[in-house]
C-alpha cells in the first residue's frame, strides 16, 4: 500500500471522505460533493471504507462521529476550499506514512496535520515564500495546520528523517 502512487492516495482520501462520516448531519453536503467528485461511489456506507486507507489511518482524534478507532474527522472532499484537508501522518521506525504520495488541494484550503511519531521530529512544509514548521514530540500526537495561499507543488517533509511525507499539489 505504501508505495502506491499519488493518484491512488488521493482516491483513497476521497473514498474515505465520502463514506466515513455518513452519520454526521453536518457532512451531508460534503457527501454529495464527494459523490460528484468520485463519480463512482454509489453507496456512501461504511463498507466502502472497510479497508482503512493507509494514508488515513493515524492517531485518532476526538471526533464527533467516532465510528471506529481509526476514524478521523476528514471533514471534506479534498478538493473544496471550504473544507479543511486532514492528513494523518504516522512516523515509526524511521518510516513515514504517507510515504511521498501526492495530494491535490485547493488554494485557500486549510491543511491540518495530525502527526504521531515514535521519535521527536519536526515537520516542514515548504510553502513558497513562507514555510511552516511543526514540532512533534516523541510518542504524543501533535496537530498543526496551515493554509496554502498560492498555487504550486509543495513538499511536506520529516526534517529528522529527511524524508518526503506528502507532496501537495495546490491548484
Amino acid at each position, binding site marked *: 500500500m505504501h508505495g502506491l*502512487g499519488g493518484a491512488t492516495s488521493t482516491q483513497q482520501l476521497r473514498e474515505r471522505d465520502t463514506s466515513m462520516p455518513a452519520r454526521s448531519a453536518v457532512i451531508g453536503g460534503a457527501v454529495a460533493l464527494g459523490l460528484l467528485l468520485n463519480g463512482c461511489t454509489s453507496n456512501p456506507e461504511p463498507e466502502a471504507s472497510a479497508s482503512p486507507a493507509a494514508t488515513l489511518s493515524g492517531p485518532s482524534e476526538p471526533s464527533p462521529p467516532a465510528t471506529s478507532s481509526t476514524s478521523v474527522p476528514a471533514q471534506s472532499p479534498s478538493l473544496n476550499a471550504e473544507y479543511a484537508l486532514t492528513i494523518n501522518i504516522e512516523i515509526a521506525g524511521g518510516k*513515514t506514512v504517507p*510515504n*511521498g504520495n501526492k495530494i491535490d488541494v485547493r488554494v485557500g484550503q486549510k491543511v491540518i496535520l495530525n502527526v504521531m511519531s515514535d521519535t521527536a521530529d519536526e515537520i516542514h512544509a*515548504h510553502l513558497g515564500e513562507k514555510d511552516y514548521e511543526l514540532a512533534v514530540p516523541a510518542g504524543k500526537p501533535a496537530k498543526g495546520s496551515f493554509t496554502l495561499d498560492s498555487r504550486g*507543488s509543495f513538499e511536506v517533509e520529516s526534517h529528522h528523517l529527511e524524508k518526503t511525507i506528502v507532496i501537495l499539489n495546490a*491548484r
Partner: protein
Amino acid sequence: MLVPLHGIASRHDLPLPFSFVVIGAVLALTISFVILIFAWRAPRFDRVGGRPMPRLTAIVDYPVTRLVARVVVLAAYVWALLALLAGQDLLTNPAFGFVYVWMWVGLVPISLLLGQFWRATNPLRTIHRGLCALARVDPGQGLVALSAKVGVWPAAAGIFGFAWLELVQPDRTTLAVLRLWALAWLVILVLGAIVFGQRWIGAADPFEAYASTLAQMSIWRRVGDQMRLVNPLAGLNAWHAPPGATAVVAALLGSTAFDSFANTSWWIGVVQSSSVPTVMWGTGGLLAMIIIVFVSFSLAAAWMGRYGGRPAAAYPRLMVGSLLPIVLGYVVAHYATLLIVEGQRTAINFSDPLGRGWNVFGSAEMGVNSAIFNYPTAIALVQLAAIVGGHVLGIVCAHEKAVTLLPPDRALRGQWPLLLVMVGYTCAGLVLLFSP
C-alpha cells in the same frame, strides 16, 4: 527560510495535466511521421549562410571589450566566492542560487542569446591567463599535449558530477559541501590547464562544455573570422561535434530526466522504504538515466551505418546535434520557473553576500515576484510547447543530417530508429512532467 530536502526551490511546478501529455505525445508522433514522409530529400542547410556582421565582429573582437567582459564576469564570481567563503550558512546566502540557478540554468539563455559568451568570459580561463601572464608563458602551452581524442569526455564526467551534486549529494545546500565542490572544480580545471594548456578548460569544464554546446543553437555564429547572424538550425547543422559530445548531451538529457523521475511518488516511495541508502539510489538512478539515453541514441544513430558509407560508430557523433533542441525543450520545461523565481531571489540576496544587511546593488529590498505560479495553465502550455517544439526541431535537424550523410533513396530507412528514439524521449519527458 527552511532548507528543502531537494534542491533550493521551496515550490515546484504543478504536474502537467494528463490531457497535455496525450496531446503532446500525439502531436510529436504525428508531426514526426509527416516530416519523414513529406520532407525534403536534398540537404537544405549545406551552408551556414546568414548575414555577416562586420561591425559586430569588430566590437566583439576589440581587446577592450573582451577585457571588460572578462573582468565584469570575474568580479561576479569573486563576489559569489566571498559569499561562499565568508557568508552565512543559510539559504539566503546567494552562493547557492549563484551556482544552482544563475550558473547552471542561466547559462542556457546566455548561450542562446549571446553565442559563445560563456567561453569568452569563463573565469577559469581568466584566472589561468592571469597566472600565465605572471609566469610569462603562453596560455595555450601546457606541459603535456592533450590528445584530440579526449574531446569533451572529461566535461561529460564533470556534468555527471554537477548533476550528482545538484540531485544526489546530501546537504547540497550547506556551505561546507558547496565549498568542497567549488574547490575541486577550481583545482582540477586550473591545474589541468597548467598541465595541458588552456584547451583543457574547453575539454573539462562542465559549465563551458554545456554552454558551448547550447551556443551551437545560437543566432550568432562565427564563420571563419566573422560573426554572422544565422538560422540556428543551419548553424547547428554546421556543428562539428567533438569526441565525447554524445556523452555530454546524454548527461544533460539524462540528468534532467532523472530530476523529474526522482520526484515521482513511485520513486520517492521506493527509495524511502528501502534499506539501501538514498545516495546509492540516487547515484544508480542518475547513472542509469544517462546510460539509457547514451546507449539508445548511439544504437539508433549507428543504424545509419547500414545505409551510409561510414562505419556505424561514426554516426552518433555526426547526429548528436539533432538532440540539442530536445535537450533545450527539456531544460525549458523543467527549469524555466526555477530560473525566473529563484533567479530573482538570488539577485536579491546578491546585494548582501555576508548576511549583514548590506544593499550593495540596491536589490536587497525587492521582493520575489512569484506571480507566475498563479498561471499554471500558461506554465503547462509553455512546457508542452517547449517539449513538442524541441522534438519537432530535433526531427528536422536529424532529417537534414540524414539526407546529408546518406544517399537520398536510403535516408529514410536509415533514420527511422532515431526518430523512434526521439519520440520515446519526448513521450518520456511529457510523462515525467505529469509526475505521477
